[in-house]
């Protein structure tokens, strides 16, 4: 009797636990369906990282701002999906004068600003002059442009200080997006942060630092957007961005700022057909800067030995799960116009031979103090991996010690020659090989292979090569393939001297929910937001 009672008690307890579990499960399931964010509009929600402090093209520099500007405005030219220069507000390709010192750009005649005023050469000149006066990156134009004229209503003429073929690419930059002279009359010499009046496919409906609403511009000269509008939101951390896409709170996620683990998780979801993933042209390069004006890295043999000691594939796999593409050039692959990579490949036998030539490996080890930016997680991982790889591969030849420094200090002390070897990154201001080579290699004054003044000093390498600066300048007076060949020759000279060791290149990615079209990147690495829409 007592046993029966006990059994019944146990059974009752089990039953009540089961009932409780079912009830909790039901409540959870119900609450989940009940609390899923309901779509309150047909507009698409697009999330990206970082707040937008200003929509003024003259101030634009972050990818987030450039992305919004690319939807609100147009540029004279644009790099298409295959990287080719295409006219946007220009009617055709720019015409250079015979001496290369003047550039004439015919403009479209059917373009209106969002405030209803007409876009013409005067409006374009107003915007360019405004940028030259107040633009944060005005030095990019100041070095090139001597004067801006509007000889006829739909013809713009730029007089150059010296021949500059890279100006074509520069004109694709969203910070040269024209703005309405009427709307910016009071802001010709100061920034207008919370409004934007341009010519793009979208009109700015509302602006907050963390939320912007874009509605299609009815009088847009080009193709109508494939969506009824966009709600852009800016979240501050990787987990929030990742979570917002996974939970269905946002339709599209544009970001390079999310953690590698989460990028991989999103890519895996895309592989399982749970999301759509698109990849843009890789534009952001990461490299090791070597200080070449003092021993031991003064010797080219030692720098080349280090170049041969760098296992990029292993490092990319450990740091980014192979999502970052190994790089052996200072020019990103999409701009290189070929597959040749001039930097030495990972080769232990050659590396050992070079170390031995330099007097190492025979009881003497090369000491390399390697600095990484403590606030960049991938830098730390790269440094740790390379240190371990060298210890595994060449323990008798080279010893690496690590040193973490905050990035602001690194940049401040770079030109003072404080770092023997330091990992840094760079994204060109416009999609052109010159935007990578000049800022890293150009040198105004040198003594032999030591640069005394110029970008090479600011970049911390102090390295140059006789003829390098001349080749860089020459490339700006050439066009097309000849120009690209010249720039590739400069890249090859740098590979030979090895003041930098390119490590990897990062491609922008975007993810979208399955019901949408896959995001499409243009040649500038920005998503064409007007192409986002429901799949048909």
């Amino acid at each position, binding site marked *: 009797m007592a046993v029966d009672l006990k059994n019944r008690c146990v059974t009752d307890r089990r039953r009540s636990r089961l009932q409780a579990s079912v009830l909790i499960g039901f409540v959870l399931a119900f609450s989940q369906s009940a609390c899923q964010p309901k779509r309150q509009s047909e507009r698409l929600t697009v999330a990206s990282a970082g707040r937008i402090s200003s929509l003024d093209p003259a101030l634009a520099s972050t990818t987030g701002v450039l992305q919004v500007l690319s939807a609100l405005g147009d540029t004279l030219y644009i790099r298409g999906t295959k990287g080719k220069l295409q006219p946007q507000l220009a009617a055709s390709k720019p015409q250079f004068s015979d001496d290369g010192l003047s550039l004439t750009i015919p403009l479209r005649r059917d373009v209106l600003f969002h405030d209803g005023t007409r876009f013409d050469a005067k409006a374009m000149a107003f915007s360019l002059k405004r940028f030259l006066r107040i633009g944060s990156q005005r030095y990019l134009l100041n070095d090139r442009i001597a004067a801006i004229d509007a000889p006829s209503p739909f013809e713009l003429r730029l007089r150059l200080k010296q021949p500059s073929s890279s100006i074509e690419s520069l004109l694709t930059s969203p910070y040269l997006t024209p703005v309405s002279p009427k709307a910016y009359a009071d802001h010709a010499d100061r920034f207008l942060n919370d409004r934007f009046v341009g010519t793009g496919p979208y009109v700015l409906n509302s602006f907050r630092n963390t939320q912007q609403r874009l509605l299609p511009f009815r009088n847009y000269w080009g193709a109508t957007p494939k969506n009824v509008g966009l709600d852009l939101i800016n979240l501050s951390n990787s987990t*929030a961005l990742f979570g917002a896409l996974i939970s269905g709170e946002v339709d599209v996620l544009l970001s390079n700022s999310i953690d590698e683990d989460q990028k991989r998780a999103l890519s895996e979801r895309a592989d399982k057909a749970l999301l759509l993933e698109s990849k843009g042209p890789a534009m952001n390069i990461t490299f090791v800067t070597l200080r070449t004006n003092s021993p031991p890295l003064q010797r080219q043999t030692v720098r080349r030995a280090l170049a041969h000691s760098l296992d990029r594939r292993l490092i990319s796999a450990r740091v980014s799960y192979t999502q970052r593409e190994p790089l052996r050039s200072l020019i990103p692959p999409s701009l290189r116009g070929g597959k040749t990579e001039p930097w030495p490949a990972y080769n232990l036998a050659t590396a050992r031979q070079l170390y031995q030539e330099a007097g190492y490996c025979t009881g003497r080890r090369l000491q390399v103090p390697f600095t990484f930016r403590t606030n960049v997680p991938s830098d730390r991982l790269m440094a740790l991996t390379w240190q371990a790889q060298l210890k595994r591969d060449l323990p008798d030849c080279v010893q690496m010690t690590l040193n973490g420094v905050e990035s602001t200090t690194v940049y401040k002390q770079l030109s003072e020659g404080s770092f023997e070897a330091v990992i840094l990154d760079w994204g060109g201001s416009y999609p052109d090989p010159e935007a990578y080579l000049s800022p890293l290699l150009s040198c105004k004054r040198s003594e032999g292979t030591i640069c005394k003044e110029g*970008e090479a000093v600011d970049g911390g390498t102090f390295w140059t090569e006789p003829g390098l600066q001349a080749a860089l300048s020459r490339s700006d007076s050439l066009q097309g393939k000849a120009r690209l060949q010249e720039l590739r020759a400069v890249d090859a000279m740098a590979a030979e001297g090895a003041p930098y060791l390119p490590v990897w290149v990062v491609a922008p990615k975007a993810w979208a929910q399955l019901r949408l079209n896959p995001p499409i990147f243009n040649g500038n690495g920005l998503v064409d937001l007007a192409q986002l829409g429901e799949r048909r």
Partner: protein
Amino acid sequence: MARGRELFRYCATRLALAPLMLWLIASLVFLLLRVAPGDPVDAVLGSRAPEAAKAALRSSLGLDQSLWNQYFDFLSKLVHGDLGNALINNESVRSIISKTLPASLELGITALIIAAVLGLAVGFSGIARPEGKFDFAGRFYGIGTYALPPFWAAMLIQLVFAVMLGWLPVGGRFPPSLIPPEGSGFLIFDSVISGNWAALQGSVRHLVLPACTLGLLLSGVFTNALRLNLNRTLKSDYVESARSRGLSEVQVVLRHALPNALLPVLTIAGITVASLIGGALLIEVTFSWPGIAMSLYESINQRDYPVVQGIVVAIAALVVMVSVAVDLLVAVLDPRIRY
């Protein structure tokens, strides 16, 4: 009468010291920002901009002036209530503060209410049986929530309730599909005033996770403070005397012990306001809450001197005001306090 005069003198002293404290804080921030490595010019132009361009910008921003000149310029503007303009986009610092402070206050006040209610309830729950299960659980809760790393707790709560269960939004302050109501910047208040119920629902939904997380993390302080004070009060002579007069335990606790035990908790609440700002930073960053702490964080990263200085002075002023108000309130409520 004499007490009233003493209280007045105390208030006057506290208020007179407030500007001195603000000056000290402002000077410290000014100095520390300049000592810290980094350059706002790099943040505007990028680290690879030519030196000539950097020098030109530095000159236009007045950063090429001597440190004394910059300091006196900063102080003279501060005295006139001018906090300057952001170096990054030239927006006035006053406007940045007026946009972001309401968001932080909305979050902070809600979190403080949640912390007080939750903390006091848990702290009070163990009083019936000291050293019993509830008392032990309350002690564990008090220490546990206080010791919990805020960023970890916030991320976990975000992952569970927003990402996995999808009950609440992952981040932000307002649904992207709606236009926030204009007004004071306190979205819940503005939604109620404008009768915009969709906006109200959206604001509340966005507030729940960050406010509950912050409230939960702060509630331990209240729990421990109430437990300790209530225990001490319950052992005091006047409580024993109340018991000996035959009052029920409920009456003893509610009428005699609790009001006295709550006085130190009030002081702690005042101090918590200061830590709320620091604690709120991690919560604001995790939940993408566009508050003043997040602005401060971004401005520090960009070395935007005027914004950092302005925000720190504003926060300091707020903390000074709250602590003076709490001191005065305690002084008024507790007749034992002498000055």
